[in-house]
């Protein structure tokens, strides 16, 4: 059965769980024989069968329901190494990525002692490394699901065990297992990422993974590196410093296997968060084009989501890859994805995000290309998308596209588009202060866009006469969030100054009207702010009223 279970067809051993008699009988072999030495091999084999056939969440639940924990506990407490190993492997399988089973294990006891404490003992270095590895794996699951809170020393021991086993003197399988498990263990904790990184100079140990021809080893190496480089800039530098890393990344991006593409993309995603890496390690190799190809050709959702995320970073203003990508036709690729009916939401968000990044402070030519490729109607449609993330990113994109007066005028020139745009984005202004605080991402973009738009006379005059709009801006000033206050103040001073240059008689009347609405009063309240940018804006606005 164990041999069979490693076949390509992973369902071939499901029969073990389909017949309700088999599991209880296997478990019976564990308990009835664990005390007698002649039968101990049977107990070990039965444990291994349970381990290798347990492949789904349902299987895990079935084993727990049949009391597997009580059955393997005596084996775990046995003095025989092979029993300890078999039971640790089984325990790891039962608890892997499963909060419910982890919870049960966390509560279990054997001879009045918590089971997990027995597992902790196996971390001790007088045990062989294989036992340490599986003990550490079990503890990883319990730790990640928070069902047991371990002392700092235990957490360090788990990391130590994994790191030691990553060293070249151990077998490829053990190193691979240790690296993947460590990646999982530290994935959500920047602190533990830091600890792991200083442990025996982990990045140097991982560099040796790539001197080996084994692809699975490299794959686990990429996973662990991606976690290490995800949060800390100094670690991105260390990871990027691994010799030939770019080539190894390219090799994996060219692979036909999704797992490998995924591992390389994860690593790239972490590294592309660093300006330095974009300009050094990643600039020298042709990863950008490979990522774009994956985005176009892959039918694996995980791969396309990751590829589009990586592309977002590669298209940042300071990225040397940006020019190449534009040259390769990235705009069309992204627009096709945005408009494609099959595209996953996450990919669409990333694609809009990528356009937003590439049009930020971009040349007029690039902005024009993006505007033309996407088209004003698509833009308006996206602005009304039910998905908030899409709206936020599209607002950002719109803002980047119409970053100076000529852009705005161009938008307006097109068939009364101004009014459509204003109507759409006005709908995102909150009805109340409470609502404003909730969707601040979208609101920030909306306000910035209004600040932009209100720089043209035509739109100014439209907005200045809209009492409802002015009232909403006033209420936003009361929200204690400078990200919102700054664009709102900017917008108000634009409106207030609308007729200033025309020396029109209506000018003072306009100001008086705004003052009546409470604009001046609301601005004065902000004089107490500690944010210097905001204060400067407020002062400029108030000057208009005082002149």
């Amino acid at each position, binding site marked *: 059965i164990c041999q069979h279970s490693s076949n390509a067809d992973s369902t071939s051993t499901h029969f073990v769980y389909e017949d309700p008699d088999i599991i209880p009988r296997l478990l019976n072999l564990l308990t009835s024989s664990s005390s007698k030495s002649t039968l101990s091999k049977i107990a070990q084999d039965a444990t291994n069968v349970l381990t290798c056939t347990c492949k789904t969440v349902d299987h895990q639940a079935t084993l727990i329901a049949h009391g597997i924990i009580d059955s393997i506990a005596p084996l775990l407490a046995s003095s025989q190494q092979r029993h300890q190993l078999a039971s640790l492997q089984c325990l790891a399988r039962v608890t892997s990525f499963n909060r419910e089973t982890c919870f049960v294990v966390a509560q279990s006891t054997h001879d009045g002692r918590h089971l997990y404490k027995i597992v902790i003992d196996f971390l001790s270095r007088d045990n062989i490394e294989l036992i340490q590895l599986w003990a550490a794996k079990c503890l990883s699951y319990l730790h990640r699901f928070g069902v047991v809170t371990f002392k700092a020393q235990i957490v360090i021991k788990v990391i*130590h065990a994994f790191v030691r086993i990553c060293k070249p003197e151990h077998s490829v399988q053990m190193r691979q297992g240790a690296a993947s498990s460590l990646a999982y263990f530290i994935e959500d904790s920047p602190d533990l990422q830091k600890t792991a990184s200083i442990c025996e*100079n982990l990045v140097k140990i991982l560099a040796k993974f790539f001197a080996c021809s084994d692809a699975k080893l490299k794959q686990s190496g990429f996973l662990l590196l991606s976690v290490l480089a995800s949060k800390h800039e100094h670690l991105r530098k260390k990871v990027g410093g691994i010799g030939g890393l770019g080539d190894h990344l390219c090799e994996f991006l060219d692979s036909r296997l999704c797992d490998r593409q995924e591992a390389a993309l994860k690593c790239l995603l972490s590294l592309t968060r660093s300006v330095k890496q974009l300009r050094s390690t990643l600039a020298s190799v042709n990863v950008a084009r490979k990522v774009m190809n994956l985005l176009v050709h892959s039918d694996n959702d995980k791969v396309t989501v990751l590829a589009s995320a990586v592309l977002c970073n590669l298209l940042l203003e300071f990225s040397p890859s940006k020019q190449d990508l534009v040259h390769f036709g990235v705009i069309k690729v992204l627009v096709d994805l945005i408009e494609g009916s099959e595209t996953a939401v996450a990919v669409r968000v990333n694609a809009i995000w990528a356009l937003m990044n590439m049009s930020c402070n971009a040349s007029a030519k690039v902005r024009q290309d993006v505007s033309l490729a996407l088209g004003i109607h698509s833009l308006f449609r996206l602005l009304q998308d039910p998905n908030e993330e899409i709206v936020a990113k599209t607002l950002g994109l719109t803002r980047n596209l119409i970053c100076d007066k000529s852009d705005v005028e161009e938008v307006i020139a097109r068939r009364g588009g101004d009014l459509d745009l204003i109507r759409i984005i006005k709908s995102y202004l909150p009805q109340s202060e409470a609502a404003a605080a909730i969707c601040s991402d979208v609101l920030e973009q909306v306000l910035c866009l209004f600040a932009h738009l209100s720089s043209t006379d035509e739109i100014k005059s439209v907005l200045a006469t809209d009492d409802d709009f002015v009232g909403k801006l006033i209420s936003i000033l009361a929200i204690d969030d400078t990200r919102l206050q700054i664009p709102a103040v900017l917008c108000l001073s634009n409106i207030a100054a609308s007729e200033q240059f025309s020396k029109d008689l209506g000018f003072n009347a306009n100001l008086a009207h705004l003052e009546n609405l409470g604009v001046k009063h609301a601005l004065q309240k902000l004089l107490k702010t500690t944010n210097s940018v905001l204060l400067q804006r407020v002062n400029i606005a108030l000057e208009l009223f005082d002149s």
Partner: protein
Amino acid sequence: DTVTMEEEDELLARFYPRLDDRATSLPRSWSAKDKFSLISLSQGNLRIHYKGAGKTEKDAASVRANRPIPTACGLYYFEVTVISKGCDGYIGIGLSTQAVNLNTLPGWEKNSFGYHADDGHAFNQVESGQAYGPTFSTGDTIGCCVNLIENTCFFTKNGVELGLAFSGLPMNLFPTVGLQTPGEVVEANFGQFPFVYDFEDLLKEHHRKIQSTIESFPLPTPEGMWHSTMQKITFDYLIHHGYHRTADAFARLTGQASEEDYSSVKNRRKIQNLVLDGRIGSAIRATRKLHPGLLEQNPNLLFLLRCRMFIEMVAGVDDIDDEDDSPEAAAAAAAAPSPPFRFACSNVEAMETTSTPIATSASEEKNRHVVVSPSVRSGRNSPRRFASKPSSPSQRSSEKTVVKSPLTILGGDQSRTSSQSSVNGSGHSNGIEDEFGVEHEDGGVVSNGVTGDERMEIDGEDCGDERLGDVRSQEDCVAAAQRECRGGSLSQRREIGDGVSAGGTTRLSGCRKSSVERILQFGRELQLLNSELKREHGPCPANDKLLQDAFSLLAYADPRSCPVGHVLDPAQREPVADTLNSAILESHQLPRQPPLELVVQQTRCCLRLMSKSGLAAGAFVS
């Protein structure tokens, strides 16, 4: 915060169990002399303060520990906590030899190695470091671990291993710390407090790895041959100590054959048991009968036995007259299935009735006031070994135990006797006549041609004493385990102990005058024997010491708590029994020491030699 020396030792013993004198060989604090002038010490010379101007590198100041790291440690570890980083936190932690200039930070000069706080670099005898680990500052604890097997070093930060820092380290390195700017304060922990890093766990790993290297070491002989060699060694050990039933069972399983007759083995065991029971008189008698001429040819052995007999008399265990109705005998009879007294008596009877040549000696035995043999023959050797015995560590430790709880020990001894007879397993009333009969014939044939000089050479070996102590203590463990299995109740043992100790003191305080007189009489004869030996073989300090210790017992009202009280410890019978056993074997041209013990001795010598020659792997062999 105060830690006594004992607690310190206990902690350090966990890390360096094979180190001979932990008290004098390990670094324990910073040296008050071996430091640069800009450094001051506090907190028992564990805390270091920088008190200079601290402007340039010229203001750097280092201090070394009071002793270098002993090679025999195998792995050595110490920690330094940064109490304050001061101005700039230019702190270097590491190692240096005695000759290195102290006006530097560790790592800048030849034979100097350091990990620096400000940049996290490792400085390997150069002024510019290499990227190594994270930086460190106030509140961080940095550890430095030296591997004396591979001559490498790594550091830890707050319990996390940072990986290899230096290799090819020289010998005789001192823990060293250097500071450079005002306000810098650090404090060291040389193992007298618990470490942040789990150093013990690392030691366990090395222990496991060395062990597995030994286990997987390729042997030059074919595997089967190695196996049979092991069996032979095991068998010889059982035969040597007279565990004939176990030996017999083992022989049947493995096909071993003894050179010695089983009955002879049994008899040796019985004589040993008599000694271990404190019935030295009976042991002498039995030896005379079974191995005529042995004691005459080994006058020093006889003297040793007599001295022990004297001690047992003082303890109230042995007496010149058989007293079956004595309280000790009754207690012993109740506790043990084979009361030694009865054994001795039936022994005498048997010999009286069976064979004529023994009749004379038997009658001599009956009147045991005449103990001094008139025909003491010459022999130049003296059992130096026993004079030096009490100074061996294992001996000392057992003395301590006795002082703390004499009752338990006495009781333990009593039960051990019974467990030993259970090892032999023979019904006493049954086997004795035959065995002694057979043995007697053998004894008539065997001549003792081995001179004592050879024995002295072996005894003079480094490890002889230690070996004895250890093997014995292992047997004690076995005996203790057996005692537990047999479920001997504590209260029973206590009773026996009380009886014996009470008997000893009453007698000495004069309640039974006749016995005191007998002891004194016996003592005079003993002194006479010593003078005779001296006359014939020249002065022998070892024998003088034996006699002096034995006689000193009489000077105290309660001999058990007197300065030489340790000689009363039943454990002291063991070397006597062993010497007698070896002499008997030697007289039959058999090795006086079993090969297993030789192997253990040789291994110990080898480990000691490794330690002396700077081969630190020996630290992880147990």
